[in-house]
């Protein structure tokens, strides 16, 4: 009898808990459906429409995608974005990993150095962009002033189409703090006994880094690679502030800037939705490719 009462009570508690759980999940589900799923599906539909936001969408089939295929500016932005990603992505991974390895050393005051190197990533990128405008100023910028004292004639970083993208890739390094912290956390997870075993085998710092630390860190490197792909392909705010309209001569006109202009400046929302879906599928495809390629090179603890 007592047992049965207990069972009933347990059941009712568990029912109450599931109700509460469903409630919380339901609220999330409601938000997800309204603010994410519906816009996602709607944007897919609009990508096949002529849609200016204010008038009802008119079905145009694949005209937007066909238009993009023929659109030279679209291809220019793809080329710019790919070039930028090819510079900023490996550089970002390398800088963040190198910093993390250095900041993982056992020396006094390390937490202070970690804070110093992480701080820049807390600053809003738009304020940084304004600051960098003056640092990279070809005429009066501090960077060229320093180079001048070293008898080097610095380039026109912001005004020369050949230098504008490398400049952006360089200053993107200020945002590597987040990736660096993730590497640092990963480095704490490298088992001590493996390093001790390597020590016994007479391995030096580089041998230990190459054969112990990096393989153990490979899932974290992979995670940062995926996040890096997503970030660099969506680069927007800094070039939007530093290089209005992708000047000089559209050398910094990136994919998302053209998407934004189509949506909000040219009022061609259908065209912009088609661009959004192409970007989404590209990122999805690249991530899937990275997953496939990485199968053989990544070591997970459970494997």
């Amino acid at each position, binding site marked *: 009898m007592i047992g049965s009462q207990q069972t009933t009570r347990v059941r009712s508690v568990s029912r109450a808990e599931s109700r509460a759980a469903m409630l919380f999940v339901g*609220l999330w589900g409601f938000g997800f459906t309204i603010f994410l799923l519906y816009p996602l599906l709607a944007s897919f539909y609009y990508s096949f429409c002529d849609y200016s*936001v204010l*008038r009802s969408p008119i079905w145009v089939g694949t005209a937007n995608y066909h238009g993009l295929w023929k659109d030279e500016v679209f291809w220019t932005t793809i080329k710019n974005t790919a070039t930028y990603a090819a510079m900023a992505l490996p550089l970002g991974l390398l800088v963040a990993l190198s910093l993390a390895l250095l900041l993982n050393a056992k020396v006094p005051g390390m937490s202070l150095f970690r804070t110093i190197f992480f701080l820049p990533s807390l600053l809003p990128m738009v304020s940084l962009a304004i600051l960098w405008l003056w640092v990279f100023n070809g005429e009066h910028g501090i960077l060229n002033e320093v180079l001048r004292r070293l008898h080097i004639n610095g380039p026109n970083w912001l005004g020369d189409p050949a230098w504008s993208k490398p400049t952006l890739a360089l200053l993107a390094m200020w945002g590597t703090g987040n990736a660096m912290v993730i590497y640092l956390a990963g480095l704490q997870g490298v088992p001590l006994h493996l390093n001790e075993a390597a020590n016994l085998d007479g391995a030096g710092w580089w041998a230990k880094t190459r054969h112990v630390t990096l393989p153990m860190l490979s899932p974290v490197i992979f995670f940062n690679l995926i996040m890096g792909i997503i970030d660099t392909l969506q680069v927007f705010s800094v070039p939007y502030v530093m290089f209005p309209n992708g000047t000089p001569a559209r050398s910094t006109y990136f994919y998302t800037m053209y998407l934004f202009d189509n949506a909000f400046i040219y009022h061609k929302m259908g065209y912009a939705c088609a661009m959004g879906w192409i970007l989404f599928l590209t990122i999805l495809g690249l991530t899937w490719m990275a997953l496939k390629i990485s199968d053989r090179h990544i070591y997970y603890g459970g494997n």
Partner: protein
Amino acid sequence: MFLSKAIFPALICMVLFAIWDSERIVSPRTDNGRVHVVYWEKWTDTEQVAIQSVVDAFNSSQDKIHVDMLSIGDVGSKTLLAVAGGEPPDIAGLWGENIAQYADDHAVLPLEELCAEYGINEDRFIPVYWQMCNYNGHVYALPSAPHSTALHYNRTLFANAGLDPDKPPKTIEEMDSMAEHMTKSDAQGHIDVLGFLPAEPGDWGWGLGNIFGGKLWDGKSKITANSPENIRAYTWVASYSKKYGAQQLRSFRGGYGNDVTPQNAFMASKLGMELNGVWMSNYIHVAAPKLKWSAAPFPYPADRPDMANINYTNQDVFVIPRGAKHPKEAFAFLNFAESQKGMELLCMGQGKHTPLKNVSAGFWKNHPNPYIHLFTDLAYSKNDVTPPKMGIWPEYLAEMNNAFDQISLLQKTPKEALDIVQERMTEKWTEHLERLRARGEIH
């Protein structure tokens, strides 16, 4: 236990409160029996102060309507989205070149009936400003702050170069020669002082073809970006890059700030002459009060005296977005703003001329710009250049700016760059017309 039981009702209450409160915020407030008119405007700083004084004067002139003005960044896109969301402001302050695009998109209300009711018509305005508000037979906007442009020049740099500051250049050829006299650079080609730079301040790079008699379209259906006059104009632009070095000019320009700041090349007495708008006097007063400057009509090519008094005219405009809750009350404010008192208050505060034909003696006397008569006269010029009234103007503008960049960087010859613009925009224009046809806007 009590807490867990209370969470659900508390959440529901919060959601309901949020819905009620957001409704309360956007609903018309009628405290003191007044209807609240919401007005979004782009201006900040002294320009915002000027429009606020008009709003305050209107609010205190009657007791039925209260205008709430909000200074909004990126007002064009936000107005568009607010119209789409069904909660637009009652008045929005856009730019003159927005009118065709916003009208094509049904984002703004035609105002001719309200204009007729209040007796507002073309007789009141300088013709170019009234014409800009008209599109496809409708009045979609009313002028707020207009501008015309002129050559601004630094009298000290003129004197230093042995030129007479009272004799500004009349022709493009004279200006080029004077610019050479004023320019100082070192042995490496690094420019210290520059006489003139077609790319500065950069607002009218799209329309420099007009100086040589060119146009961007025929006003009806044909794009004319690569006309011989336009090619000639941009060949003139390229001549500066060839003479002084494309990278040197870019580096010089990049070294200085925009025309509102003391770091601007003209303000810092590093640029001898530039094309700029009526507002420049206000900016100089704040950023470089000791600068000795003058203004004169922009030069014309020696073989085209018919292009004298060329200037770029444009204006900020008031529109009533489609779906506005109080269009009649909003128009009552516009009627006040378009009166001589309202316009002179606004335009005096912003250092501009008024778009109205009638100007009071006090306006002329107290205006801070010593060349206000010149700018007003220029607004009447037969060579006024206004942005084309095309729904695809933002795209056309982006293409022209890109072509200007390519030409001044000597990446492409003027003909090559303008041929690309011609091809792209002809295609875009055809697509746009097809789109309007599909929507039933035109036949």
